[in-house]
């Protein structure tokens, strides 16, 4: 067996790491707004952030392709900043992975933030802590365990996006070919051995992230309850 091209692995890890970072930062903001702010259109925002969970990847991919194409305002803005188009680059794969994992994160993070006893929050505010300080010093640490487990889940999920990635970033070996796209490519070209190897790789990688996170979360959970 010739040497296996490991580029899809490195690309997938890089994409997943960046997508997770974006998911955690923006997802926490969305989750906080949804769980703490009362405003008109809150339910609409909730529905919009949930939409990617239920739409077929093709619909989502096509929508993003139109939204981010070189002729769209967003695509043009991106191009004016970075000097190159977004679609069919590995950056587009990050966007795809983000859209794949962020809705899940927002939903679960909102529940985690809701779970923090409001009295801790009230106590902090009445002691003079601003909303931001209360969030950073009280809410975040108290929800921290679930949020870290959740981030691991999102990382694993980011590794696995296929539909949106192939529509938005395409399948350019050595450029935009992530692990899941490479598996599709291997199967298409009849390379069963490679497909099997990459499949095991993806599964092992996801497990390597999920298992420790789950163990850690449940152990800390038990200690907290005791």
């Amino acid at each position: 067996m010739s040497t296996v091209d490991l580029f899809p692995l490195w690309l997938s890890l890089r994409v997943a790491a960046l997508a997770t970072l974006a998911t955690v930062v923006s997802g926490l903001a969305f989750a906080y707004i949804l769980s703490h702010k009362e405003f008109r259109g809150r339910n609409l925002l909730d529905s919009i952030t949930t939409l990617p969970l239920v739409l077929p990847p093709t619909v989502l991919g096509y929508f993003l392709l139109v939204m981010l194409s070189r002729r769209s305002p967003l695509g043009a803005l991106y191009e004016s900043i970075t000097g190159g188009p977004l679609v069919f680059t590995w950056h587009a794969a990050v966007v795809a992975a983000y859209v794949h994992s962020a809705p899940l994160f927002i939903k679960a993070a909102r529940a985690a933030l809701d779970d923090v006893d409001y009295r801790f929050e009230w106590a902090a505010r009445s002691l003079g802590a601003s909303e931001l300080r209360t969030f950073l010093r009280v809410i975040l640490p108290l929800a921290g365990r679930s949020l870290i487990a959740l981030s691991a889940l999102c990382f694993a999920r980011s590794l696995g996006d296929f539909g949106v990635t192939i529509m938005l970033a395409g399948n350019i070996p050595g450029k935009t070919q992530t692990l899941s796209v490479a598996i599709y490519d291997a199967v298409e070209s009849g390379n069963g051995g490679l497909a099997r190897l990459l499949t095991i790789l993806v599964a092992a990688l996801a497990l390597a992230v999920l298992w420790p996170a789950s163990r850690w979360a449940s152990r800390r959970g038990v200690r907290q309850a005791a």
Partner: protein
Amino acid sequence: MAGPAPIDARIKKTYPATRDSPAFVLDLHLEAGDGVTALLGPSGAGKTLTLNCLAGFAKPEEGRILVRDELYFDAATKVNVPPDRRRCGYIFQDHALFPHMTVRQNLRFAADSARRRSKMQRRRRIQELLDEFELADLDARRPHELSGGQKQRAAIARALASDPKVLLLDEPTRGLDYRLRQSFYEYLRKAKAALDAPVVMVTHDAEECFELADVVFLIEEGKCRQSGPIAEVFKAPASVDLARSLGLYTLIEAEIAALDPGRDTSRIRTLNRELEGEVDGPYLRGHLLGDRGWLCIRRHEMRVVTANHREARNAMRLKPLAVTRSPRGMRVQFGRDFNVEMSEADYAEVRGERDLTVYVPPTAVSFLPL
């Protein structure tokens, strides 16, 4: 007193009826002085909601909240100061100490958040508070490693560390045993002495009001039914319903048999056949001879008179219905909400008598209209 009270709050907040609960309207005017003000009433009366409006956790629809001449809320001009700038030290029922911080970190969080002093002063103040509330040896512990009493002390110390302008307490001793209650009262008095700030306390326990409060507001169904210095309010509740819910009085249907403004006395005759008698009371301003209403007697002030010292006046000859043991000796039951406690030795003297003489001090008597 010149000027407005330290806390002057007019609050109106409505909750429409839902499937589980009827509509609720909180509508009251709270004027609290520099001492301890108790909001007393049954659960669901709106006491905690009042506290939350003061602290900024609930927003009234109408009204105005002034604390020490600082406007916290005004519906008319749309002023609503956020909770972190109201400087209300809020002590929660379960203390709400941050579980991920040590005792010292809890206090430091409060002092750093409030930013009322320089860094050096804050550090010194925290140490002072830890010493004062006997937490110096526990400063590195997390809340789950503290006993109930230690948590209490830490919660008070934390509230003080933020240099509050008002101290708000939400049923701080609910579910605590006698010993912990007493120690809480002691530390709270200590805190109050050190703090030049009004205290507003929510409670449903009349005894607790006597321990701590100077002024009491009786709150029922979102309204203030009566307010005033604690001794006055408890001396004569404003209505039969209030007297019933306070649970400290014996109420008997009665009429006014005599009024003597010259000697500042009255005579009230009961209209209940089982509890027949006449007692003297204070002169009843605004009532007429023959008015019907309720004789209201502060239960703890009645005595069963033993043969040795019979008081001729102001006694009722009554048939005991039941005798049970009580923490203070024996409890003799004469009717619904009408029982008199006496020592075992006194009871031994009257045991077996068909009728007992119950002495009703005139100062314990009031008359409530129907």
